[in-house]
């Protein structure tokens, strides 16, 4: 069994490695041992700053710091940075297009026991609608490290969405290459496209396995960059498979499913079914149980894939 690592842990290690760049500065809001920015803090204390429990000011300070030519990483839980500091991200960071990386860890339901106040299921939607913002949600440790290096090298505002839960490696493949704005086809298939992001990529891979015995060959796409979205890859998948299922640990409104639907509807209309949190708040509980209860599992994706295949034009049940 390959080792499971959470994306936040991989992030902390990658961020510390990026610290070799003396132009890089990190802020945290009293969560550094959770966001894992503590690894950077211990290695480069002179370039690490505590903002205290004051996320709006942290993002504003990061903007000011970035305006002086620095690359700034700014950390908190997704809820308290993308959510609480939305206005600061929009007006102080994105509008002036400053080089600030907003890092939201503990995103989605998999935070678990802390419950709804901490389970951010809106951040992809919030960040995606801000003009000029790059939004990245890596699927595993390997991809997270690539993503961190890529956003650090990119000059402009980014949102990086990370999870608390340890996840399976899905991108440790020969020929795997990370590029901002480009999705990755993890498995070829022509009957349905499973487009997933974050920890739902591992579920989509498992769903593809479940569909195989039923004669359904699912293409699995890891869409790590939600914005700018890989339009060509999505369009091609819709065109070649004729049915799409999206999967995200996020509200089904406004996130990956929304973004994919927008492209498919305007370029190659085929059924798109969205797996995600169905517009309701989370709840306390063990992460695995919550994922089950909210339908964020391989099983659920497979069921939706079967439905999507039946909805296709030319499907016997539609004729």
């Amino acid at each position, binding site marked *: 069994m390959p080792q499971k690592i959470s994306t936040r842990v991989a992030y902390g290690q990658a961020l510390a490695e990026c610290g070799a760049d003396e132009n890089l*500065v990190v802020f945290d809001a009293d969560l550094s041992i959770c966001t894992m920015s503590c690894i950077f803090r211990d290695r480069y204390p*002179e*370039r690490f*700053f505590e*903002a*205290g429990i*004051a996320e*709006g*000011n*942290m*993002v*504003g*300070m*990061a*903007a*000011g*710091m*970035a*305006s*002086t*030519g*620095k690359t700034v990483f700014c950390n908190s839980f997704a809820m308290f940075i993308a959510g609480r500091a939305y*206005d*600061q991200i929009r*007006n*102080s960071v994105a*509008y*002036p*297009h400053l080089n600030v990386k907003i890092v939201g860890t503990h995103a989605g339901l998999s935070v678990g026991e802390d419950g709804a106040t901490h389970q951010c299921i809106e951040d992809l939607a919030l960040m995606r609608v801000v003009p000029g913002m790059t939004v990245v949600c890596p699927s595993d440790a390997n991809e997270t490290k690539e993503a961190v290096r890529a956003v650090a090298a990119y000059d402009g505002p980014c949102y990086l969405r990370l999870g608390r839960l340890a996840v399976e490696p899905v991108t440790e493949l020969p020929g795997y290459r990370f590029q901002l704005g480009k999705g990755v086809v993890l498995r070829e298939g022509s009957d349905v496209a499973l487009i997933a992001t974050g920890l739902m990529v591992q579920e989509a891979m498992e769903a593809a396995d479940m569909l195989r015995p039923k004669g359904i060959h699912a293409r699995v796409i890891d869409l790590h960059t939600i914005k700018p979205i890989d339009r060509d890859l999505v369009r091609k998948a819709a065109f070649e498979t004729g049915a799409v299922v999206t999967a995200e640990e996020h509200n089904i409104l406004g996130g990956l499913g929304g973004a994919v639907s927008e492209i498919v509807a305007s370029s190659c209309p085929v059924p798109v079914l969205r797996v995600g949190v169905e517009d309701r708040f989370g709840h306390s509980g063990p992460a695995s149980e919550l994922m089950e209860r909210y339908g964020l599992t391989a099983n659920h994706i497979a069921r939706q894939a079967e439905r999507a295949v039946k909805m296709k034009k030319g499907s016997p049940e539609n004729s």
Partner: protein
Amino acid sequence: MDKETERRLKLTAAKVRKTGLQAIRYARSGHVGGSFSVADILTVLYFSKMNIDPEKPRWEDRDRFVLSKGHCTPAMYATLALRGFFPVEDLMGFRSADSYLSGHVEMRHVPGVDMSAGSLGQGLSAAVGMALSAKTFHKSWRTYAVTGDGEIEEGQIWEAVMAAGHYRLDNLTVFVDNNGLQLDGPIREIMSPYPIGEKFKSFGWNVLETDGHDCARIAEAVDAAAACKGRPTVIVAKTIKGKGVSFMENQVRFHGSVPTDDEFRQAFRELDGRIAELEE
């Protein structure tokens, strides 16, 4: 400050008011009251104290300035134009769709603006970040910021004040433009931030008070702030909203409402009179 320098600064401040009002007249939109209350502070900073070069607006070692009360663009843009950052004629496009001179301060397109602002309460945090950058990377430039006295009702201001005190940012000087009025009425009635100085003091700041329309005293306060080590400085500047035009002074209506044609004429007469008097 010698009398001649003081006269020239007063003259410049009067021209900032006139030029800012012209921009508002062209646009038929813009905030006159707070622009007039902050005009003398901006004049002293940009024409006497700040280490800047209009030829090189992005010069790395320049002093930084953040207009946290970002709606007072008429005064800010007039100051930058008169200081040579861009042509004064460009103010004729102020707030229009084809111009780069937007309604609130904007850093990407307006030469001389170091930080975009407009959503109140955010600019001071950026100024703290700038000052922290200079400290961290051993730069000697200073950061200045101006907040409104209504603006400090925003909670984020006090987060920023706490952070600046915590990091002992003695390279940061902040003015509170204490004109006593906000959009809906007197700040005392809307949501009193008083006592202002004591609040900053309790967060570890050096607190100075001054007459915000006395150029010599403003300059002295700026020097005293620079001399203070180990603490950021706030200069609580007592000002008059609408200062410089008799019928606009202390009038809530002139926060953001555009004067009538008659009022414009009368205001320009008064400002021209003041300019002529100072030019003699």
